[in-house]
């Protein structure tokens, strides 16, 4: 509403300013024109009088009779605006004047042609007195401008009254006419307000004219129509999408349940026969211990080993599958403390060779503590395993912060690998060594990759045969706790 009031006021102000200005200009021009023409009229009238007086004064001048001249001049007393009249002879001497004895303030030059001059408050006419082509002297007539002032005052008053009347009429007209513009604008503004406040796109502004405002209102309504349509389409699309997402989610959930049921049954049903093979092989060994030769013991050993190995494979595979499904926790994980802990666990196992450790400062990151522990455990145990053939195994653990990620690397000086097979390293059950060389099922690095990927990071490796290997994993920087500074590992 406030906006509508403003536009109404603006419109009225504009119209009033325009009309008042125009009226004032017209009035001023009229007054000016009147002043100019009235002055001309005054001059003409005075000049005419001067001519008559001059003609009547010829005898008095010719016969040098000042009394006569005075009488002639005195005839002008009936006009109060004539303040002074005087007659000069051909030598420029004052011959006669009226009122008697009065002298013109200005020094009078002899005039051979009629002339008039407007002073600040008077009009002076000089008229040559001529008889039969003979110049006898000069007539001086001075009139005040009282008449002009009176007339001017009256005229200005009339003009002002007319202007005031016109302004009043103009205001009434403007007030009435602005409705034609302000009302549609107000209606449009009201519609726009409702649209923007209530997000109600079904609102339509009422078109009140077929001018530009009508056009604007029409366009506005069309736009609202288009928005309403699009809104509806969008809503429909959203509903569809939601329905589809729901359906897809249900599908995925069903699949996930199936997968879980599958791994559950693998865990139960595949392991049971293995346990039996192993168990009965052991019972058999106990049972025929005395009759068993080396070969028999060897075969039974293979049976047990294989069953145990398969059990391990199943466990690893199940863990790998769990890693992908398990919900991830997120908390601060101090990698330095984690590495120290893992090293401690290793050192407790005295069967290993002494290892030269180079542990650089490691950051505190955000992630699932158990999963990140598994990552580092896998990488460190790999490093220990594959450097165990060296005279002095060396393991380096370091972190580097690049633009938007933290890269952690675990390097050893062990057997390394051929970069040609680097792409296979992180695959499930992919191995670059025979089981007789190094134990393992080939699931560790696959788990590492899966966990790191679930944390939003990457994994890669560099190495050279017999020159050691370096395994890298990155974690996104936003996963890093800002409040902690890298700390030296114990």
């Amino acid at each position, binding site marked *: 509403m406030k906006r509508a009031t403003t536009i109404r006021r603006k419109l009225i102000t504009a119209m009033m300013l325009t009309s008042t200005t125009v009226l004032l200009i017209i009035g001023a021009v009229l007054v000016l024109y009147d002043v100019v023409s009235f002055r001309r009229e005054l001059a003409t009238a005075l000049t005419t009088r001067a001519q008559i007086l001059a003609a009547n004064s010829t005898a008095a001048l010719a016969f040098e009779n000042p009394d006569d001249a005075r009488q002639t001049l005195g005839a002008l007393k009936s006009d109060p605006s004539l303040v002074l009249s005087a007659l000069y002879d051909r030598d420029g001497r004052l011959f006669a004047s009226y009122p008697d004895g009065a002298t013109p303030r200005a020094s009078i030059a002899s005039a051979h042609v009629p002339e008039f001059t407007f002073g600040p408050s008077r009009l002076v006419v000089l008229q040559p007195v001529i008889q039969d082509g003979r110049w006898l002297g000069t007539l001086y007539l001075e009139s005040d401008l009282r008449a002009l002032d009176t007339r001017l005052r009256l005229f200005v008053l009339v003009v002002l009254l007319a202007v005031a009347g016109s302004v009043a009429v103009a205001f009434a007209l403007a007030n009435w006419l602005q409705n034609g513009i302000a009302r549609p604008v107000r209606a449009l503004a009201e519609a726009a307000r409702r649209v923007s406040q209530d997000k109600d796109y079904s609102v339509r502004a009422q078109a009140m004219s077929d001018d530009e405002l009508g056009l604007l209102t029409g366009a506005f309504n069309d736009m609202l129509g288009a928005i309403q349509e699009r809104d509806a389409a969008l809503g429909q699309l959203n509903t569809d999408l939601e329905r589809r997402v729901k359906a897809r989610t249900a599908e995925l959930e069903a699949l996930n349940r199936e997968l879980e049921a599958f*791994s559950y049954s693998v865990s139960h049903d595949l392991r*049971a026969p293995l346990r039996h093979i*192993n*168990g009965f092989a052991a019972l058999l060994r106990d049972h025929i211990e005395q009759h068993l030769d080396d070969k028999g013991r060897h075969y039974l050993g293979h049976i047990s080993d294989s069953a145990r190995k398969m059990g391990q494979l199943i466990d690893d595979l*199940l863990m790998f599958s769990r890693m992908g499904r398990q919900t991830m926790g997120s908390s601060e994980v101090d990698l330095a403390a984690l590495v120290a802990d893992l090293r401690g666990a290793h050192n407790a196992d005295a069967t290993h060779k002494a290892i030269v450790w180079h542990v650089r400062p490691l950051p505190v990151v955000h992630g699932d503590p158990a999963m990140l522990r598994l990552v580092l455990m896998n990488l460190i145990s790999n490093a220990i395993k594959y450097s165990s053939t060296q005279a002095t195994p060396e393991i380096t653990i370091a972190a580097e912060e690049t633009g938007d990620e933290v890269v952690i690397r675990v390097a050893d000086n062990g057997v390394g690998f051929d970069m040609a097979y680097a792409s296979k390293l992180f695959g499930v059950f992919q191995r670059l060594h025979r089981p007789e060389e190094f134990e393992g099922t080939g699931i560790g690095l696959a788990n590492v990759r899966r966990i790191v990927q679930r944390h939003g990071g990457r994994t890669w490796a560099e190495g050279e045969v017999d020159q050691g290997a370096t395994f890298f994993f990155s974690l996104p920087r936003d996963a890093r706790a800002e409040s902690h500074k890298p700390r030296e590992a114990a």
Partner: protein
Amino acid sequence: MSELKRVLLAEDSAKDIELTLAALDEYRLANEVVVVRDGAQAWEYLSCTGAYADRTPVSPAVVLLDLKMPKMDGLEVLKRMRGDATLRAVPVVILTSSREERDIIEGYKLGVNAYVVKPVGFDDFVDAVKNLGLFWAVLNQPPPGSARRAA
């Protein structure tokens, strides 16, 4: 304790029964082991109903429960035991090949006393069963209430 109470073994796999008995035998466990082949039978034995309606109503020293059994699974048997005033205090050990966390979590929620994943290695298995037998049938004093009922 002059009289050793029985051990109830609920297990559907004949081979697992044989292995478990061999392991218990290895330890020369003095308790008598009652074997039932499914959850329903286990419940009948425990509640002295059905085929076991006539047995002396003495609660077993420990129940070794397999999880996956026909008719009624181990968790269901456990749930019923925990809902029964007489059987509530009887120690229950779940013996299974499952490493599934949800089984373990569910088992502990229902108040299982121990949860032993049957190791694939026979020696480990024997150790596990030995520890169980030792702990529940010999060393562990049953809660006073159940001891009085047993008397």
